[in-house]
């Protein structure tokens, strides 16, 4: 029996569509429900980040990095300050490193919570989304306690932090983690093993290893394809080499390695690992140390360039900073992980049903702020 082909229809998903996670437009060619070609159009959220950076001083870039990936602003700050400190050869003290890692890992939990919740929402399960948001709020409370802001922090500075931890932060974070750990199980029970979700996501949108690497896909998406690659382990920046944690990879428990379910489940496992790191960091954080100790008086990096990568919740975030010796960056390029993750959509999304395409899009965990910059 041959395959019946009907007339192809061009369908615009977005820019305003509930499943595009922002303002993304996917132009898909569909034959009935089967999608044959996906062409993403982005730029609706383009805020000229790189052009802006060429007009402001180095410290003024930090608020803009916040706004790139608004779901993981701490990680974006972290990447930038790591790059700047490498360029200027600044060594920050222990306490700062510990605080940065606690913040980055809490941010990873928050971001992954949102991603898993939204993935459920894309597949029609509304409840886990709100449960995830409820716990994310508590993390945001911790951030608010620390730096006064809930979403866009401007917390990490080149050579230090804007504030020290408030009194009682360590205790309240421990309290949060104790509360939070059973909630991960809850999230896993209602979503990950639900038969309908497994049917919807297992074996769907399989991303093989070589495709993932060739497309520059990084972070949880790459690990779900079975590549054990995590910058925190493989190219440790800051003090990540001091902590014990596993790098979860996709094993194809419910289907093939690298399918939507793996991408989703790797994130749940990573939440657990991040909880581990936060616990270790909280236990061993040095009591003293001035967070403003190594703040440079004026940020005037030497002439030269640096490319520094850090592991954000969405993958390898690279900052390429070209300095001409003035207090203003000559050129600043952000290599955003979601940008490359979205580019793979056409490759792995063709040939699936419309509902699957949106599930694949959800499992890639893109943030349009970071793609468009």
């Amino acid at each position, binding site marked *: 029996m041959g395959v019946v082909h009907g007339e192809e*229809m061009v*369908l615009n998903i977005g820019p305003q*569509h*509930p*499943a595009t996670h922002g303002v993304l437009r996917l132009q898909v060619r569909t034959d009935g*429900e089967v999608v044959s070609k996906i062409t993403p159009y982005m730029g609706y959220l383009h805020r000229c980040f790189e052009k802006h950076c060429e007009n402001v001083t180095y410290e003024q870039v930090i608020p803009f990095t916040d706004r790139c990936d608004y779901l993981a602003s701490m990680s974006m700050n972290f990447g930038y300050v790591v790059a700047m400190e490498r360029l200027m050869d600044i060594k920050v003290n222990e306490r700062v490193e510990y605080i940065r890692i606690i913040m980055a890992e809490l941010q990873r939990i928050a971001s992954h919570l949102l991603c898993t919740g939204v993935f*459920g*929402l*894309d*597949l*029609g*399960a*509304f*409840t886990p989304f*709100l*449960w995830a948001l*409820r716990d994310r709020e508590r993390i945001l409370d911790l951030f608010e306690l620390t730096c006064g802001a809930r979403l866009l922090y401007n917390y990490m500075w080149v050579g230090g932090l804007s504030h020290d931890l408030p009194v009682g932060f360590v205790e309240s974070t421990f309290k949060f983690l104790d509360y939070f750990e059973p909630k991960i199980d809850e999230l896993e029970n*209602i*979503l990950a093993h*639900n038969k*309908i*979700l497994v*049917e*919807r996501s297992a074996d769907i949108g399989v991303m093989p290893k070589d495709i993932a690497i060739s497309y520059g896909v990084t972070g949880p998406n790459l690990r779900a394809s079975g590549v054990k690659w995590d910058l925190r382990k493989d190219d440790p920046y800051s003090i990540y080499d001091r902590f014990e944690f596993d790098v979860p990879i996709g094993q194809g428990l419910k289907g093939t390695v690298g399918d939507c379910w793996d991408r989703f489940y790797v994130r749940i496992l990573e939440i657990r690992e991040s909880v581990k790191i936060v616990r270790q960091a909280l236990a061993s954080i040095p009591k003293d140390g001035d967070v403003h100790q190594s703040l440079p008086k004026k940020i005037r990096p030497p002439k030269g360039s640096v490319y520094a990568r850090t592991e954000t919740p969405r993958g390898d975030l690279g900052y390429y900073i070209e300095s001409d010796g003035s207090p203003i960056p000559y050129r600043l390029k952000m290599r955003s992980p979601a940008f490359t993750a979205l580019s793979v959509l056409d490759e792995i999304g063709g040939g699936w*049903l*419309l*509902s*699957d395409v*949106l599930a694949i899009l959800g499992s890639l965990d893109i943030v349009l702020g970071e793609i468009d910059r």
Partner: protein
Amino acid sequence: MTVDYIFEGLNQMFSGFTGNEIFLIIAILLPCVGCFIFIALYGLVAIYAELKVSSFIHDKTGPMGQGVGLHAGKWGLLQPVADAIKLILKEDIIPSSADRPLYILAPFIIFIGAFVSFVAIPFGEKVIVADMNIGIFYILGIGSLAVIAIILAGWSSNNKWALYGGMRSAAQIVSYEIPAGISLVVVIMLTSSLSMQEIIGYQSGGMFGWILFDNPFMPIAFVIYFISALAETNRTPFDLPESESELVAGFVTEYSGMRYAFFFLSEYANMFVVSAVAVTAFLGGWQSPFPNFLNTSGWSVFWMMSKISLLIFVMIWIRFTVPRLRVDQLMHLCWKVFIPIGLFNVFGVAIWIIVRG
């Protein structure tokens, strides 16, 4: 039945008059108006219940308010009223490229489909608008009217999402008619009647007289019917026609205001109808669950309503637990799971009846 009562009552009251035809029309219109008011009120209650149940599942409070003012009343009781007022006052937009007559017609057809089904629902021992001898068959037949309306809505909106929603819905409702029908056939085999009242009458004598517990095949039939009913009313996990994260809003994408409200209302009305059929066929209808406990004609309405409410609650509960199926999985579930098992069930019940005599 109710029509007959009113007709006779009117005739007795105004025995001097000879305008029997007018009395008949009044006797027919009155229950219809009653049904309409009932649907509207029930819709408000159901919306409120859905808001509250979902909120509690989500660890939220749902609609709340401290006073009348701008708030939604005590515990947010006025929220559905506010919703209704909003929908009525909203601008009614008809897309310029829409097929105007069909676009306008669709919400009415879907509402008529839901509304007319109420005629055959036995609310109580004596409260039924028309006790037809083919009641259950009638409801199944009228229920399919929704397909036409949804296709009309999807097609006439001239919107690709709406079209997808309409097409999905047509396939879905037409398919799920079959397992629903098959599981009701089992009931009809037992009771050897299509009349709603007679089916209920068969199930007298407390909880264990219910068809659900009549023989081991019946729970399967009930589950199949209930899930198919979910699919027929487009509830999650079968809400593909209007799956909000895929098709924006499916076949209602272009509708707004009162027309949208009609779709909304008829979805809730359909939920009520399918629950009523499930209660009638499997859960003893208006019979009390205990043989001699409040088993009077007056309490029968209470029992019927509480059973229907329970089923509607379960529908809401399921909606906020599970993700949505995919189109092909939906069809797989229907044709490869429910229909074989349903047919097997029919066979089993037939043997059961023969063996038991």
